[in-house]
């Protein structure tokens, strides 16, 4: 149990995928102008990463390994993630207008989010068991959402701040991201 907790904290905070691996920078800069957008995007990312991780994990161990097709893992995962996002979007359109309004617009952005592919590949490379895979697949997107939310609150304040004209927009956002990465290294001794 403590191992799972350590895995969760490590994946979410210490080895945060955005600040240590620099993955998912596109949505971090693109959908972090408002805190509400950040929460919507973060929730959609948690849902898609968890769902696609379970699918790819089962597909890998139930089909690819018995058929000795392990070398096809990358193309399999890309297609499964893309198909899963399309499927979720279709279900939301058909059955849940409220959820579609809140999350649907972020789903096409998630297809190109490299964090999703990263998590599915790490689940296999690290040889996680099913429970560990579930914990890791929730912790990584939760860390992504945490950073996205913190980043969006800072950017909301930056909009009204007196920033030099050459630093307005993405340059100051990247400087903030670098400072956040430096701050988060302080969590290194936590677990």
């Amino acid at each position: 149990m403590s191992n799972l907790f350590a895995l969760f904290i490590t994946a979410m905070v210490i080895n945060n995928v955005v600040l240590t691996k620099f993955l998912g920078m596109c949505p971090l800069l693109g959908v972090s102008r408002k805190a509400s957008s950040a929460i919507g995007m973060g929730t959609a990312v948690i849902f898609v990463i968890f769902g696609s991780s379970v699918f790819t994990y089962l597909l890998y161990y139930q089909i690819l390994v018995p058929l000795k097709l392990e070398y096809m893992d990358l193309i399999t995962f890309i297609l499964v993630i893309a198909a899963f996002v399309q499927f979720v979007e279709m279900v939301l359109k058909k059955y849940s207008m409220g959820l579609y309004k809140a999350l649907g617009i972020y789903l096409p952005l998630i297809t190109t989010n490299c964090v999703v592919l990263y998590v599915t590949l790490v689940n296999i490379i690290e040889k996680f068991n099913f429970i560990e895979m579930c914990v890791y697949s929730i912790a990584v997107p939760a860390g992504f959402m945490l950073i996205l939310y913190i980043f969006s609150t800072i950017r909301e304040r930056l909009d009204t701040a007196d920033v030099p004209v050459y630093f307005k927009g993405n340059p100051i956002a990247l400087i903030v991201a670098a400072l956040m990465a430096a701050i988060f290294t302080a969590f290194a001794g936590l677990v």
Partner: protein
Amino acid sequence: MLPALLYLAVLGGLYALVYYLNHKTPVPEGCEEIIAACGSCTTTICGAHPSQQVKEIKNV
């Protein structure tokens, strides 16, 4: 080799089917105008880039 090709065909077919079904499903009323406001990069071929959304509106 054959199992790999068959597997790839099944997977590709599944994706094509889901993609087709998704695009056939109508967008709920009141959600037609909702777009993700992403303007982080200059990759104009990305579907979320504002220039793509302008094109879509023109086509409609």
